[in-house]
């Protein structure tokens, strides 16, 4: 059953639910953060509208910097701004930032421990027709190995807005992962977003499996949980929006309760959410796991739904993974 405490949208599971890309919520959050603190500045690399920084640019032109197609310079200029007390957000597609400029992020933002917020848009295979060059499925692994880095993966547009506002207030390097396509807005203004705390979105009695997800695929996880409940398999669904620092307590609690875990992410199953959960469980309470995500392969062109199905991240694939892991309890 949906956890009533997290106040999810009453429209959840309905076909007419509002759909909006997570990057839209980021754009709204950025303006709110900019109004709250005059030190918030935004840097873009020639894709200002696409990353939804245009609203901030039009509202605060003196605090917006067009960097051109130069992600390496963008990351380090942001570090310099942060060293002078500014709160920069740098935005591009995740394949290029933190992809192309990873070493600059490592040295001058993570190691230098500067207050820079890195925004990777168009992450995951749902980026669609642009093809694999533009589908970041490695960015979480790249960011997770960096000391000092925090990682937020909003599950919908509203959560992206909350995460953006939070990132501006939290001192230190943050990575915010965004997606291109419209996905259901299934949380509400009342849904809690506390950095570093995973939320249980679904919990049925005597659960046999914990589905731990991040990003818009959490909606698929919830759909799978609902179907499975009708088939007599009860689960818990966790929205793990903060990949680092990870909410170890919640992960361990649900693993102990269910004795089987499925992770769901639009990312390679190595090095991202699945890897992070496996590390925690191996250390604290070894638990059978299945990993839904990209299975060591690149994507291709196609529309979002086709790709999610083909690469095994749809509702059906999540249900299969649950059934498989439940047998290993």
């Amino acid at each position, binding site marked *: 059953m949906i956890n009533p405490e997290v106040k999810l949208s009453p429209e959840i599971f309905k076909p007419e639910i509002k759909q909006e890309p997570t990057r839209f919520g980021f754009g709204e959050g950025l303006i709110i953060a900019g109004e709250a603190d005059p030190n918030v500045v935004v840097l873009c690399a020639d894709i200002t509208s696409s990353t939804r920084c245009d609203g901030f640019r039009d509202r605060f032109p003196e605090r917006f910097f067009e960097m051109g197609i130069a992600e390496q*310079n963008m990351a380090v200029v942001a570090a310099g701004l942060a060293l002078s007390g500014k709160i920069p957000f740098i935005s591009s597609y995740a394949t290029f930032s933190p992809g192309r400029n990873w070493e600059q992020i490592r040295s001058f933002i993570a190691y230098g421990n500067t207050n820079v917020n890195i925004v990777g848009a168009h992450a995951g295979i749902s980026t669609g027709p642009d093809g694999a060059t533009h589908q970041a499925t490695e960015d979480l692994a790249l960011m997770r190995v960096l000391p000092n880095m925090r990682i937020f993966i909003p599950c919908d547009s509203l959560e992206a807005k909350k995460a953006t506002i939070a990132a501006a207030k939290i001192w230190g390097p943050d990575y915010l992962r965004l997606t291109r396509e419209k996905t259901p807005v299934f949380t509400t203004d009342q849904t809690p977003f506390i950095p570093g705390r995973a939320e249980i979105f679904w919990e049925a009695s005597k659960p046999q499996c914990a589905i731990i997800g991040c990003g818009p695929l959490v909606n698929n996880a919830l759909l799978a949980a609902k179907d499975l409940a009708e088939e007599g398999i009860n689960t818990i669904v966790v929205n793990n929006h903060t990949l680092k620092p990870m909410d170890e307590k919640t992960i361990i609690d649900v693993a102990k309760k269910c004795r089987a875990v499925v992770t769901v992410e639009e990312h390679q199953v190595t090095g991202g959410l699945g890897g992070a959960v496996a590390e925690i469980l191996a250390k604290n309470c070894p638990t059978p796991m299945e990993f839904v995500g990209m299975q060591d392969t690149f994507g291709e062109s196609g529309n979002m739904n086709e790709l999610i199905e083909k690469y095994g991240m749809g509702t059906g694939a999540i249900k299969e993974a649950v059934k498989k892991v439940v047998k290993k309890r």
Partner: protein
Amino acid sequence: MAESYDKKVKFLEEMANKIRQKIIETLLEAGSGHSAATLGSADIFTALYFHILNHDPRKPDWPDRDRLVLSCGHYCPVQYVAMAYAGYFPLEELKTLRKINSRLQGHPHYGVLPGIEATSGPLGSGLSQAIGMALAARMDKKKHRIYCVTSDGEQDEGNVWEAVMFAGKNRLSNITAILDRNNIQIDGYTENVMPLEPLRAKYEAFNWHVLEVDGHNIEAIIDAANEAKSIYEKPTLIIAHTIPGKGVEFMECEFKYHGVPPTKDEAALALQELRTLCGKIEED
């Protein structure tokens, strides 16, 4: 006036010599590090820390201080030595360079040693950090300047030219970059590894004001830094032509000393040369 000016120049020249000696001692103690460029740029760092920079070693966080970003992080022994002589920390601490639990990391780490303005070492990114500081200063209507010491070898990096282009576009006249043109990098002479010339024309084409000086003439370095302050429409690059290993004859212009410290015997010889100005004066 003229007399006090001459005195000042003499003081700076003597300081540069002291800094060179301390570099030799510090690198010998460390057992690793870069000899050639640190000796070669000693006059530049002397000019910066003892005349050009508006700074206060007792108040390293003073908001209106000039910033110095070292882009070529491997030069840090000369910066640490100059900072110690300027009063940022005791000379004794130089013995900890590159050793465990030290504030003097092999390449500078922001946040552990007051006065170090930025992390550096991975080449080609210092100017970008300086640009961030320059943008912030402009937004905050601050008058301080941002200095960036950069090497010639690191001009190979693409990140440099992204930064050069951006600073030119945005007319960041509060930046003075000083490029140590010593013509060497680890694999050999710069023009063999990856030709940089015409360097001046390249920067000018990117809308920079470019000056060239003898990087061992402290007066000329100071004059150029003063001229840069009067340029309101562009960032300024001072190309400082230097001799790597300057002051120690057997190291001069030898790229094999780029990335190594002196041996014990070499250090003794180097110190003797520096103390006697290559035999021109008697040792004390």
